[in-house]
């Protein structure tokens, strides 16, 4: 099939950027979206033009490196599917596709469709872990964990950190990302110990990195390639309220 692409081209972070039209000819329905772009790029390179820069690595939907907005939807039209696993059979011949980078103040464009998601790393660095040293830990079965809690933790821990939630959010909020980590660790006894400190530090860092606030639109859940639920945002809110209760260590901001 043949497609018309309008792709965001921006030489570097200082360039203004614009949409450029490309024709993708003879696209196989078995191609993934990124393979379609690979083929377009091969054509551009041979013509001596600068290929479209985009991030990708594992190409099996788990590393979270890829991500573009296709016709207004991060990772494209298919539910629970990353761009690298989105196949062209879900498009129609002669479709016109607008391909843009993830947009948010906290995700500045580096080049074309590549954005800097370092702010996510910063949020994790502010407290998205259990503060345990290597060595000296008890046997894995010392603390029993109800299956339901372990499953809930896993549901939240599946987040791949791709940033689609931020890209889709009208407020550029990283609440789903932050909530997934807060909820994952709060559901486990190992993570419970620091739960109050963590939720305060991570939400503060989120704001400090320039992300917006959550307005409960749930657009994030709709585009999340891993199906992370907004119930985890409610869980984060609960954890935050709990952290404010008297008796908790003071929650005074960036830890």
């Amino acid at each position: 099939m043949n497609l018309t692409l309008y792709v965001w081209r921006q030489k570097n972070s200082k360039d203004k950027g614009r949409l450029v039209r490309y024709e993708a000819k003879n696209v196989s329905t078995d191609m993934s979206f990124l393979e379609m772009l690979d083929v377009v790029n091969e054509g551009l390179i041979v013509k001596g033009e600068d290929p479209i820069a985009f991030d990708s690595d594992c190409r099996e939907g788990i590393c979270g490196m890829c991500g573009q907005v296709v016709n207004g939807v991060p990772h494209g039209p298919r539910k629970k599917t990353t761009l690298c696993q989105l196949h062209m059979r879900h498009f129609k011949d002669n479709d016109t596709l607008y391909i843009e980078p993830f947009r948010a103040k906290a995700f500045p464009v580096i080049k074309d469709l590549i954005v800097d998601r370092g702010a996510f790393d910063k949020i994790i660095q502010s407290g998205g872990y259990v503060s345990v040293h290597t060595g000296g830990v008890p046997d894995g079965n010392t603390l029993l964990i109800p299956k339901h809690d372990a499953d809930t933790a896993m549901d939240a821990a599946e987040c791949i950190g791709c940033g689609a939630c931020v890209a889709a959010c009208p407020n550029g909020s990283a609440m789903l990302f932050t909530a997934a980590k807060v909820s994952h660790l709060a559901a486990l006894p190992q993570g419970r110990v620091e739960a109050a400190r963590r939720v305060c530090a991570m939400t503060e860092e989120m704001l400090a990195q320039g992300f917006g606030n959550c307005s409960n639109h749930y657009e994030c859940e709709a585009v999340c390639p891993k199906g992370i639920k907004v119930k985890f945002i409610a869980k984060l809110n609960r954890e935050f309220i709990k952290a404010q209760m008297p008796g908790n260590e003071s929650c005074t901001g960036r830890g």
Partner: protein
Amino acid sequence: MLLPTSTVGKKIMMAITGQVLAIFIFFHIAGNSTIFFHALNGYVVALYKLPLFVWGGRLVLFLAFVFHIWYGTVLKLENHAAKPEPYAKTRYLQATFAGRNQIWTGVIVAVFLIYHLLQFTFQVTNPAVAADTHPDALGRPDIFMMVAQSFRQIGISGVYVVSLAALGLHLLHGIQSSFQTWGMNNERTLPVIEKTGNVVSVLLFFWYCAIPVAIVLGLLKG
């Protein structure tokens, strides 16, 4: 204490104040519904016999309004700053019209509120029908006359219906959203709260509209 400054704290302030105002919205229409039983004037007199309740309530509402608007504006500005560039092509999968326009329905409601207060509380928009200067047969301020005379003008009723629609949309997103902010959602309760919030918002809209509409249609006469 991060309540007034943090991202969740600000949202919680929105939720508390919003819920206070929503509760008021319910009692306001419940009380005003005495108009259908020709008991509005009596209800108002009875209400004013509880000055502590009235003035305490007004204070709480005033504070709720101020904080709701303040935090709403702050959040909106922050959110706007966090998403400086729009997409060339936008498509929403789940975000509702109501939710995305919360700030604008809020602005409409706020402007309307000023008008509403000037009209019926301070009674300055039309002194000819001001209740305080026009007692009824029992010597009470004739609230009913004031309301009925005002709403008989189709323009005023129109303004009310449009503003109430904005309020309805505001509640449509606001009610369910406030429960999420309080952390009262999980997979099972989320759809229930969403549906309940929607039903309550729509009911309140129709309930409120019933007064001007009934007057315009001549169903409610003196």
